[in-house]
């Protein structure tokens, strides 16, 4: 699934659920609010009925309206209260706010309840007739504060938005996390697929090249034998030419051998081996190959270093690296220093030769890349392959004219 599709696949249902949650929760809150308001309304109406009975009682006891309302003035929830006669003239009133009695007789008929907004919050208004005495009709007008109800509604709204926001943020973070994971997984999968295809291609090329090499080497061997025979039978003046031809055939054979070796998959045959001993053997073999009278190859180690490695292949790797250093240094010192670093062995091979130009440093481990006249560009490629087969890595640091340092890290030791 592509990144964008994945995002949509997760985000759309999440947003859908969030919207459903929002709508259902809003409907639910509206329903509860409506029910609560109705309940409060009923309760306040019931309270007003009790109030009417009390007022009727006080009036029959000949208390003045002012005295009656004084007894209610301390009640926190009653903002204002008024008593009106049959003709709706105000007989008496009391209000918590100076002169505030929002009663319009143009809009109120015989009885009713309504809610008004005020800077002090919503106020439930109740206007209702009652008879304190037989044959006498009065009206009670009362305004109750709905502050507590409003606080409750505001609290509920605040909590709702808090929970909604939290779910939204957590969801977004969670799915972004999933998205990143999926992207990373897809990236790695793609890399693995490319690598697999590359390996497959490499295996096919290897098999093909090995087959071609094998097919070429058979007639070459015959040719070599033929030149050997010819060498003894041709006149003396042609013997040098035949020898040259024979040498060229050997050269072709060596090239094919190198090709075959470089293309073969590496199979390790690990054993415990001393690095000092390995380097010593390599030095000996190089002394037969190179004139190293003016070059000093010095090996040092912080403590005795032993490797769990394929001795033959690892020797081949060091041989290739030292050949590279010798090719670059006509004289001077080539130092090899080994040390145990935590759970790995680090080997530094440092020469004071020509160095490698910066633009070539990235390419020196590529197969068949060489800056030398005689080289085929297989040595360093093979070295890298051998080191990597041992789960190690190799780095190069070099400056033109100031020598080169190869650093090898091999796990274990």
């Amino acid at each position, binding site marked *: 699934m592509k990144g964008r599709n994945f995002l949509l696949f997760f985000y759309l249902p999440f947003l859908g659920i969030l919207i459903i949650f929002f709508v259902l929760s809003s409907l639910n809150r509206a329903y509860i609010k409506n029910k609560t308001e109705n309940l409060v309304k009923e309760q306040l109406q019931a309270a007003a009925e009790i109030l009417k009975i009390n007022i009727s009682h006080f009036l029959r006891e000949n208390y003045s309206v002012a005295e009656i309302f004084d007894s209610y003035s301390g009640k926190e929830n009653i903002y204002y209260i008024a008593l009106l006669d049959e003709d709706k003239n*105000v*007989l*008496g*009133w*009391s*209000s918590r*706010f*100076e*002169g*505030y*009695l*929002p*009663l*319009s*007789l*143009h809009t109120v008929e015989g009885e009713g309840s309504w809610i*008004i907004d*005020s*800077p*002090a919050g919503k106020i439930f208004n109740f206007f209702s007739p009652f008879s304190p005495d037989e044959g006498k009709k009065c009206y009670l007008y009362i305004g109750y504060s709905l502050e507590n109800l409003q606080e409750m509604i505001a609290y509920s709204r605040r909590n709702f938005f808090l929970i909604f926001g939290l779910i939204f943020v957590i969801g977004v973070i969670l799915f972004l996390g999933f998205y990143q994971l999926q992207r990373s997984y897809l990236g790695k999968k793609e890399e693995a697929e490319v690598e697999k295809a590359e390996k497959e291609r490499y295996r096919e090329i290897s098999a093909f090249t090995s087959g071609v090499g094998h097919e070429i080497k058979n007639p070459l061997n015959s040719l070599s034998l033929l030149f050997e025979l010819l060498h003894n039978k041709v006149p003396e003046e042609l013997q040098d030419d035949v020898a040259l031809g024979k040498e060229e055939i050997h050269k072709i054979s060596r090239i094919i051998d190198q090709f075959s070796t470089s293309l073969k998959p590496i199979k390790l045959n690990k054993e415990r081996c001393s690095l000092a001993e390995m380097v010593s053997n390599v030095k000996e073999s190089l002394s037969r190959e190179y004139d190293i009278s003016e070059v000093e190859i010095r090996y040092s180690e912080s403590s005795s270093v032993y490797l769990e490695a394929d001795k033959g292949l690892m020797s081949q790797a060091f041989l290739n690296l030292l050949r590279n250093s010798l090719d670059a240094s006509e004289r001077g010192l080539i130092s090899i220093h080994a040390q145990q670093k935590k759970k790995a062995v680090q080997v530094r091979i440092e020469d004071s030769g020509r160095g490698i130009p910066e633009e070539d440093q990235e390419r020196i481990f590529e197969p068949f890349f060489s800056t030398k006249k005689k080289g085929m560009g297989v040595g360093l490629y093979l070295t890298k392959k051998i080191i990597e087969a041992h789960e190690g890595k190799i780095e190069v640091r070099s400056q033109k004219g100031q020598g080169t340092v190869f650093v090898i890290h091999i796990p274990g030791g």
Partner: protein
Amino acid sequence: MRKSRYVILLLSLVILQAAVLGQETDHYYNVDTEKKVRGTIQMIVMEPRYKDSSPFLIVILEERKTKEMFNVEISPVRFFSQDFHKGEELEVVGSIYSLDGQKNIIARQIRYRGEIFMLRDKHGFPAWRGGEMTQKKKRKGKRF
């Protein structure tokens, strides 16, 4: 100027005190009796108007056309920061009631020196009990 104003205030207080002490029956903001009155300021007094409330600023206003006198109840003295001056014009929108033959107005909105001051909301809720007084800016060409 300020001194003479306070002398007038003191005298007025003594004269009018008896008439307005306590919470009178009709002395509430009756939205049904709302009216607009324009006139000239004659006197400024401070009086207690409501039970357990601080003294109110009262402007004695002479109606422009009928020359009738109105006691205009503005707000608690501490709330209204503008200075009224005798002879200046004032337009009042408020609830009218009569007490002992004297006409009174509980002001909801006043226009003074071209500025409009909202003292109560449309139901008569006092601005000094619910936030700051609304003061509208001058309107061009609407001075009176």
